């Protein structure tokens, strides 16, 4: 889905055409992505056009990036302190 939207804004029909899933499933997923702030939509005539919301995506990436930094630091602390206890 993101691969399609990376190429540019697209309608539900256009997105579904390139995927092995039903149109309702695509709609539902787009709704979830919209709630998560990862895509935005706008009305164009009778269709809804979806586009990647760069800011939302960057927030998620930054958050995950920081999360893995923290998680790996905790792992290192645990692994190395465990060593001393033995």
């Amino acid at each position, binding site marked *: 889905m*993101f691969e399609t939207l*990376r190429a540019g804004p697209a309608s539900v029909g256009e997105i579904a055409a390139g995927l092995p*899933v039903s149109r309702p499933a695509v709609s539902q*997923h787009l709704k*979830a*992505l919209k*709630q*998560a*702030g*990862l895509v935005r939509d706008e009305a164009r005539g009778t269709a809804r056009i979806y586009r*990647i919301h*760069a*800011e939302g*995506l*960057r*927030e*998620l*990436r930054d*958050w*995950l*990036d920081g*999360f*893995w*930094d*923290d*998680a*790996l*630091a*905790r*792992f*290192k*602390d*645990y*692994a*190395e302190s*465990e*060593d001393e206890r033995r």
Partner: protein
Amino acid sequence: MSVVEISPIVKSIDVARSAGDAFRMFTAEIDKWYPLETHTRAKSSAGEKTIGLKVEPRVGGRVFETLNDGRELDWGQVTAYQPGAHFAMQWRLGRPAADATDVSVRFEALSDASCRVTLTHENWERMGEEGAKMRENYNNGWVTVFEQRFGEYVADLRRDA
């Protein structure tokens, strides 16, 4: 328009343990270091709390957390399990398989007693709403800590003044 590059998140850290030990601690002892209080599927707003996290030690095994009420929530399947070398799992977090994100961790010996751990998180953009929920949980957790601890601290200062 600014464009976000949808590339894998790659993190590397050197650990003063052998690759074999680090692999075991990363997988079998994941509940000892993973931030269970903030980065899980438990909905803290609904009173749910994560009390356990387990990796079944084989390809196709489950990765799941256990809640305080005994329920088990799946995170995804183990997709690579080579002790001392490579561990990988889906990070689905309740999303359909087509939306799986992939976490891969490689252990590379630097000496007999140290190794480099490199974690790659691919397809992270597919986290969608679960990602947002986790972020929210995390933020709530931090806000709680901040408001309570800081509030108590300020109250103590006032009492002392």
